[in-house]
Structure formats: structure tokens, C-alpha cells
């Protein structure tokens, strides 16, 4: 991101200058939940910045949003409403959206779920659903600091971009080499 911002006036989010290299863990501390949500969505290519430049891999989210979403996968802050789908149906749904083999995705998701032991299902399912995709960067909107160790272990060697409301909650998500703002 180079000078990336969204909105105007009091609702302005940014401008942000952030680089995420392969395998790197980057945490951004935001002023409000709205800013954290918008920043994470810009990083995942879901929201298009109104000013500045954003590149995800070699792609511009304004022009090639689908290509960007092959690289960055988004995990929302909100808990998943569990009655909506059981685990296997949810993983099959996510696998179909990303065109990933259903059987391999289910097996992979069960391994991820094992690594996320202790994490509430409402937070574990969306992360498992994100990690079955071939995306090389995981964007987490205000992840729960209580589950930081399990989340970092489950994400493994992929790059992460997380948003937070204070530095203390960002700390567990960034390694020594990480860039932090």
C-alpha cells in the first residue's frame, strides 16, 4: 500500500504505507473498529482504496479483484453464526468458492482445526475455511489476542496482515522480523 486511504472527512481511513513480503507478519494498529475493518478489507482486495495505490502481488484490486483474492484471503473479526452451517458443509462451501478439491480441503481443514485446539469454533471455522485456499497471505481483521498462539501456528509460513486497536493486542501476532506500525 502506498498512501492508500478510503472515505472522506471524519470517516477517512489512512493514508497507509505498508509492505508485506512473503512469509512476513505485519500488524497495523488502527484508531477505531471501522478503520480496522476498512484497512483489512483494503489489504484483502475486498474494498478499493479511494486514493493512493494498492498492489496485491502484481495485481491492482481496482482492475483485477479476482486475481488479488487468489493471493490474499480474508478472515473477519465477527464470530461465525454456527447454526448457519456445520463444519463439513462450511468447508465444502469455501472449497467450491475457491475451486479447491473438496476432499483435500476437508482433510486440510481438519488438520488446521486440530492446530486451533482451544479456539472457539465460531472463530476457528472461518480461519480453517481461509487456510484451505491456496492464498499466500492471510488478512485477519482484529483477531482475538487470546488465540494468538494457535492462530500463528495454524497460519504457518504464509504471510499475515492483521489489524488491531492497540499495540498490546498486536504484539502476539508479530514475530521479531515483522514490520509493525
Amino acid at each position: 500500500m502506498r498512501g492508500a486511504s478510503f472515505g472522506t472527512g471524519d470517516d477517512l481511513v489512512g493514508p497507509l504505507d505498508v509492505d508485506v513480503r512473503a512469509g512476513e507478519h505485519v500488524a497495523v494498529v488502527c484508531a477505531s473498529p471501522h478503520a480496522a475493518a476498512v484497512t483489512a478489507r483494503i489489504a484483502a482486495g475486498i474494498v478499493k482504496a479511494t486514493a493512493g495505490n494498492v498492489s496485491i502481488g502484481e495485481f491492482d484490486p481496482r482492475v483485477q479483484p479476482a486475481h488479488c483474492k487468489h493471493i490474499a484471503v480474508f478472515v473477519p473479526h465477527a464470530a461465525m453464526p454456527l447454526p448457519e452451517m456445520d463444519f463439513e458443509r462450511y468447508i465444502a462451501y469455501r472449497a467450491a468458492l475457491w475451486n479447491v478439491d473438496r476432499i483435500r480441503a476437508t482433510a486440510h481443514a481438519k488438520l488446521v482445526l486440530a492446530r486451533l485446539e482451544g479456539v472457539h469454533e465460531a472463530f476457528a471455522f472461518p480461519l480453517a475455511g481461509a487456510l484451505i485456499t491456496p492464498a499466500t497471505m492471510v488478512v485477519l481483521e482484529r483477531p482475538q489476542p487470546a488465540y494468538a498462539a494457535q492462530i500463528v501456528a495454524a497460519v504457518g509460513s504464509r504471510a499475515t496482515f492483521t489489524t488491531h486497536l492497540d499495540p498490546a493486542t498486536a504484539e502476539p501476532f508479530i514475530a521479531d522480523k515483522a514490520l509493525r506500525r
Partner: protein
Amino acid sequence: MTGRAFAAVVEARTFSQRHTLVYGLVAAGLVGAVQPRGLAAPAFFCSLVGIVAALQQGPGRFPHLDLCEQSAPLFGRELARAKALVPCAIAVIAAAAYCATASLAGWREIPFVFAGTLAAVVPSTLTASCATLRAGAPRRFYLAMAAAASAIVVMTIVWARQPWIAAAFAAIAAFLALRQYGEALARYDPV
């Protein structure tokens, strides 16, 4: 978008709107039993069911499904087709239920009325889908257009007695509404 992704979106959306589907089906069946004459009643009632089902697809109603779809590598137009199919299917099922109970009540013009009802409900439901991505005056404008599309089809068939013109109007209106929905979904920023 693969056929698998299309089917997954349709299945997840249908499951999340299963209550609307059942209520629409039952209500249309009841209304068909007590009001089995004329094209206007099934066309307007089933258009209303379609509009309600379309509005339920709006952002915020099923936020987790919205985010899964928005963060997936799908194009807006492709996603629009899958999402639009669900309220259209609900409206068509309601029309079928209406005609089924009307036929049990002794009505004999079922095939013609069913076709006329479909011509009314599909463009109005797709136009209402466009309203889900807008707020304020544009949203009200699209809802008014959805109601108008249904009324134009009914008037063309009942008063002008030009069913082929009504069918052509319905096809063009549905195509334009679906295209507009796809464009709006591609440009939509979910914040």
C-alpha cells in the same frame, strides 16, 4: 466462476432463506385458494414475494456469507447471477404454489396465467435485487421500478392483450436488471 461455485452460492443462499421460501410457498398457496381468478392477483402477490426475497439478500442480513463471497476470487457479474437466482426461484415456486391451489379451486386458465405470472415476477425480482446495493432515494427508485415492471407486464397482457410484447418487455427488463446488478456488485465496497 465454476459451476461448483455457482451451485455452492445458490445452495448456501437458499438454505439461509429457507424460511422465506416456506412462508412464500404457504402464503401463495393460501392466496391462490381464496383468490383464484385473474392474472393481477398472482402476478402482484408473487412479485411481492420475489421483492421481499431479493431484499433479504442485501448486505448485513447474512454477513458471513457476504464476506465469504466477497473475499472469494469471483467476478461481480458471476456472483450476481448466482445470488439473483435464489429470489427468482423463490418467486417462481410461489407462483407454482399459487397456480396449483387455484387449479384445485376450479380455475382452468392455469398455463396462461402461470406464464404471465413468471413474466411479471422475474423482472420485478431482479430489479429489486439492484435496490439491495443502494440506499435512500436510489433504493426507493429501484423498488418503484420493480413494482412498475410487474404492473407493466400485467397491463400489457390484461388490457392491451399483447402477451408477446409483455414477454419481450419482461426479457429485456430482466436482462438489463441482472446486468445492472452485476455491475453494481462488482463496484460495491462492503463497508
